[in-house]
């Protein structure tokens, strides 16, 4: 399983440390909020809102170099829209992996 990384952010930053710092700050601020919102809407079976949150979160997967996980999130987003949740355990494990990584930044 691929681990999250900042390769893409570093490439775009091109040595601009303030840009990197801004991105890190936003990730640290937004990710825990989005993760909590995801679990809340998921538990309430508000699948429309859950799909919206997945859509927002999945972009962070790609930012952190997790292309395969992005693909899974896209399928989970579609699945949730139709009220199915088979991919939930896999999606959850990605969230936990990213959460740990962001906390380490």
């Amino acid at each position, binding site marked *: 399983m691929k681990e999250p990384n900042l390769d*893409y952010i570093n*490439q*775009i*930053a*091109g040595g*601009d440390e303030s*840009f990197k710092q*801004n*991105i890190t700050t*936003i*990730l640290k601020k*937004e990710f825990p909020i989005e993760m909590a919102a995801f679990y809340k809407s998921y538990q309430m079976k508000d699948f429309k809102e859950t799909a*919206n949150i997945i*859509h*927002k979160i*999945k*972009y*962070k997967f*790609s*930012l952190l170099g997790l292309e395969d996980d*992005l*693909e899974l999130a*896209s*399928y989970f987003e*579609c699945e949730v829209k*139709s009220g199915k949740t088979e991919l939930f355990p896999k999606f959850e494990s990605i969230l936990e992996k990213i959460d740990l990584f962001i906390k380490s930044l």
Partner: protein
Amino acid sequence: MKCIIIDYDEISRLIVRQLCVNFQHIQILKEFSDAIDAVKYLNDNSVDVIFLDIYMPTFSGFDFIKTLKTPPKIIITTSDRNFALKAFEYHCIIDYLVKPISKQRFSKAIEKASVDEEPHTNEPKAPLDHFEYLYVSLDRRLIKIDIPKIYLVEANGDYINIRTVKKNYVVHSTLKKIEEKLPPNTFLKVYRSFIINISEIEDIEDNSILIKKRVIPMNRGSKKELMKRINLL
């Protein structure tokens, strides 16, 4: 080149701004997290290029384009590949960038944007029948289907069966959605559950059509429409 960025996601806006740093002729005038605010801004200000996300909570990127009488050049920036075909129906959309956007890909988009062209309209570029292919999502892959080879599409609950001579594709979609993607001069919805390829019709009876050994029911309205479209002696 005067630009604005419209994207609900703050990180995305930062990244586009950072990517623009490498181009001296680009001036980012303003960023918007809400397309409605951008509409108001554009009432009083003109820009050359808009970097536009599609998926936004209150107002989609496509809805936004429809509000502009003479839209500037638009570069779509999205994490969704699924809207690419729809995007290219618009004259004003000059490129479609899938996030995360690489520097190289962004440079190409800027090259396109920097070329002087006639003003754009928000009208569709060409009828959809100019597309020869349709991409459908199947087993986590996007499968290309040759549109002229489709002879029948039938609704089947939450799915549609797209039938070609070689293969039958079962896709999670609706008849209404695929109808919008098929060229209207070739395809016709003849009944609640069927869209047929007119050129594949073998036989027409009172209220039914024979197509690849399948008898398809046809309602009166469809028959009238069909009669207008076939080469009748």
